[in-house]
């Protein structure tokens, strides 16, 4: 078991190494470099030379990669170009904001998705299923920029209940954020919940049709006991991986929602730093987002292993 965990962690580190290499090489082969993009029209003469010197662009690229990688391992991503401040300081509040948005969405969205999925499966083809399934399919198909815009229009502009866009500084406290994130959370949850509820629904339906559920019924197990003991533990196992992917997506991939609501999270930082040609920040973000995906998927895989007795004893046997 321990060996397996170490093996998976090792594989994750290799993935991260490859990601870092790809982003670094990608930045290298782009026409121009950090200085030319930063200085724009003034990229000539002593200003350019000074910049190159300052950023160390005159050092051979493999050397620069090694230095950069060594610093990253130590947790230092270097300096951003535009703000000329340490990237860690740029990232800190953004990571926090993204975490707040993600965790609130997770706390609301995942239980909701599981409950809806179970309800639709247990009342399959009956009224509750038809109503909920229609709504989920509807909210799945509307692109998030439309649903987000509509939310702003209705809740913020027509009803005036909540602020339409987030106009707080990126280092606002948790409580200041809370009232601002209600609309983004709703917009994100609509898509996330719909996807996951559909997944849970089909998984529960599949398990309900299994021989062991029929056996439990014929054994005289009361309905709800059967659902909680025999159905759900088996039906929700495959959901763990989907939940993991969703969490990873929430932390870095909700770009559109963040932009529409002007939310200072990691997703928007990606867009901003790309349009500012702030290449060190882009590199740092690539590594961070990749680590999030690798880490969360690793946790999900290990959880599946622990919770599924079949896989567990298979691993032990090996």
């Amino acid at each position, binding site marked *: 078991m321990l060996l397996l965990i170490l093996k998976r962690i090792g594989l994750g580190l290799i993935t991260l190494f490859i990601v870092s290499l790809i982003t670094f090489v990608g930045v290298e082969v782009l026409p121009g470099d950090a200085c030319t993009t930063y200085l724009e029209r003034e990229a000539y003469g002593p200003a350019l030379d000074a910049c190159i010197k300052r950023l160390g662009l005159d050092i051979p690229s493999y050397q620069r990669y090694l230095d950069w990688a060594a610093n990253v391992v130590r947790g230092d991503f270097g300096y951003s170009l535009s703000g000329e401040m340490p990237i860690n300081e740029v990232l800190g509040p953004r990571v926090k904001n993204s975490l707040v948005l993600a965790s609130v969405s997770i706390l609301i969205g995942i239980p909701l998705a599981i409950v809806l999925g179970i309800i639709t499966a247990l009342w399959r083809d009956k009224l509750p299923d038809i109503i909920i399934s229609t709504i989920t399919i509807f909210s799945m198909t509307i692109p998030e920029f439309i649903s987000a815009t509509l939310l702003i229009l209705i809740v913020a502009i027509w009803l005036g209940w909540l602020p339409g866009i987030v106009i707080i500084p990126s280092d606002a406290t948790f409580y200041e954020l809370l009232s601002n994130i209600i609309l983004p959370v709703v917009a994100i949850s609509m898509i996330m919940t719909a996807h996951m509820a559909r997944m849970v629904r089909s998984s529960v339906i599949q398990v309900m049709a299994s021989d062991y559920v029929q*056996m439990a019924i*014929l*054994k005289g*197990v009361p309905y709800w006991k059967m659902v909680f003991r025999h159905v759900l533990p088996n039906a929700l196992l495959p959901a763990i991986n989907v939940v993991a992917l969703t969490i990873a997506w929430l932390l870095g991939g909700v770009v559109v929602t963040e932009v529409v609501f002007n939310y200072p999270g990691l997703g928007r930082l990606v867009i901003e730093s790309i349009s500012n040609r702030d290449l060190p920040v882009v590199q740092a973000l690539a590594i961070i987002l990749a680590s999030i995906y690798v880490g969360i998927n690793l946790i999900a895989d290990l959880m599946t292993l622990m*919770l599924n*007795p079949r896989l567990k004893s298979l691993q032990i046997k090996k």
Partner: protein
Amino acid sequence: MNEIIESVKNLSIGFNSQTGKQISILRNVTTNIKKGETVGIVGESGSGKSTLALAMMGYIKQGLFALEGECIFKSEDLLKMNSRQLEKIRGRKIAMIPQNAGQALTPNLKIGYQIDEALKLHTDLNKNERDNKISELLNKVRLPSPETMAFRYPHELSGGQQQRVAVAMALAGKPDLLLLDEPTTGLDVTTQAHVLELLRFIAKDTGTSMIYVSHDLGAIAQVSDRIVVMYAGEIVLEGPARKILKEPIHPYTFGLLKSIPKLSLTGLPDSMPGSQPQPGSISDGCSFYERCNLASDKCKNNSPELEYLNNLDTSVRCFNHKDLIQENKLHHSTITRKDTVQKNNNVLNLKDVSITYAKQKFFDQLLNKISDENPTVKDINLDINKGETIALVGESGSGKSTILKSIAGLLKTKDGQIKFINERILSSDLKLRDPNDLRAIQLIFQNPDESLNPNHTVEQILTQPLKLYFNLTGNELKKNIIDLLKKVRLGEFYMSRYPRQLSGGEKQRVAVARAFAAKPDIILCDEVTSALDVSVQAAVLNLLQKLKEDLGTTYIFVSHDLAVVRAISDRVAVLYQGRLCEIGPSQNVYNYPSHPYTEVLLGAVLEPDPDIKPKLVAEDIVEEKPPEKGCSFQGRCPRKLGDICNKEVPPWQIGENGNAIRCHIKINELKNLQNV
């Protein structure tokens, strides 16, 4: 004894088709189950036997509903009860033992918990008493080390053990009626015989009534007092077991019994024409009309009623049953097979073949080193003659299918050679084989549902080999396809059909036609009749024999069904854990089994005759891996000598009948031991 425990009255169950028509799959079934009695419900797939059994627990599968009738258990109709009331009866009064215990046990719950659940629901025992009861139950179903068994998960047990757990779970509530839905189907022969023996013991010990549902008349014959024969959703015959099996007075039962291959008979069984009508396509007349050789005009337009014959204590649904009574006894005729073996004309040689599933380790791969783990299949030597049918038999894990895959080139061999005609070595790598060699060896698989592409018509299915190997097009292609269909006795109009529009037997015929399209020298048959109903199986076996006689093909026939193997094969090779135990002419291996494993295997076969009881010589332990040293059968052998069997691989010895066996005991001595 005559107290009725459950009675089914005029029960019909059906579903609404997409066109809104009501289609019944169970029609006007009436039967009674008496206290302490075991009733066998037998029928082929689609006869409604499982639907009937489940309805007797008040359970109707989703999509189906009761059209009319009732299931009266202790003066109450189960079909009118709500789920609360049913929970009080299920598991406590009527318990179920399912078909596939491996899938019927909840995977995330330990064995002990699942039995405890039944105890908690249906008894008033406290925690301590329940724990004792669990070990008592596990002990009763003869599971090894019941103390630790309770803490294991279902997947950690073998198929036979899982089935025993299901039995223990069913017994937990001390039911009055046990419902067994194909409880031994899918188990190995020896395991099946052991589980049946256990069930018989339990019925006697507890006085529980049992309903035993199966397609296997062999199993039914061993346990039943009374037999109900179902056909197309109706009861066609019901009566005392011995009478039904020995003097069946319904033409379907008669034909069914005749189409079962038997260990004591050489040659192929008689087949019944046609197949069971699909629900919804049943006409006004007798549902067996189209396949019946006693049918008259009356049968075409009128459906016979179930008629009770007082003198025989039998109910029968047939206008002409008197003709069968006159014929009186079931005489088993078989079709003699023509001998097509060309002696000393080898088409395939397996020399010292070993096969392993062990994956090469990364470094071994780099060094091109082959894994030194004990191979799954080892030291296989076989010379196969042209026109011969050689059968590989053994229980699951015996390596029989593995050998087939290697001959086909789907699995690389570890050691040894496979030689084709003219001593030419066949590469063990499929990619390196000559296209002509690929054509010459064809495969027919167990399940035609999976081996035929559901999106191709029969014409497309047969076009592929003809185009690939012979480049046929246009009229010639069409002519060949029609020829092939004729060979497997299917009409031209089948060309435009899709597999889903064919019955199981027809699908397997298409698969046979596809194999023959390549004009092969050798056809590898992997359990080709296992997925088919008995009456259809006989027809497919007869077809394979006919084709071989006409075309001189060689068959390598893999099956777990020893009676089928006896009927079709010229020579039999018995395998245990991937090692040959005994090989010889079928007649001799079956009449004079010498190797202890052959003896165990043949002893466990269930015959559809209540007077022939299986002989259980060895325990049904499941071994996961072949032993590292010595004889492959050392772990289960009833005649084990001692250390020599653990250490030395037994030598080959040839008996006077031409059977070759691998055993440390002299072949003549084994004979004497068997007679003791």
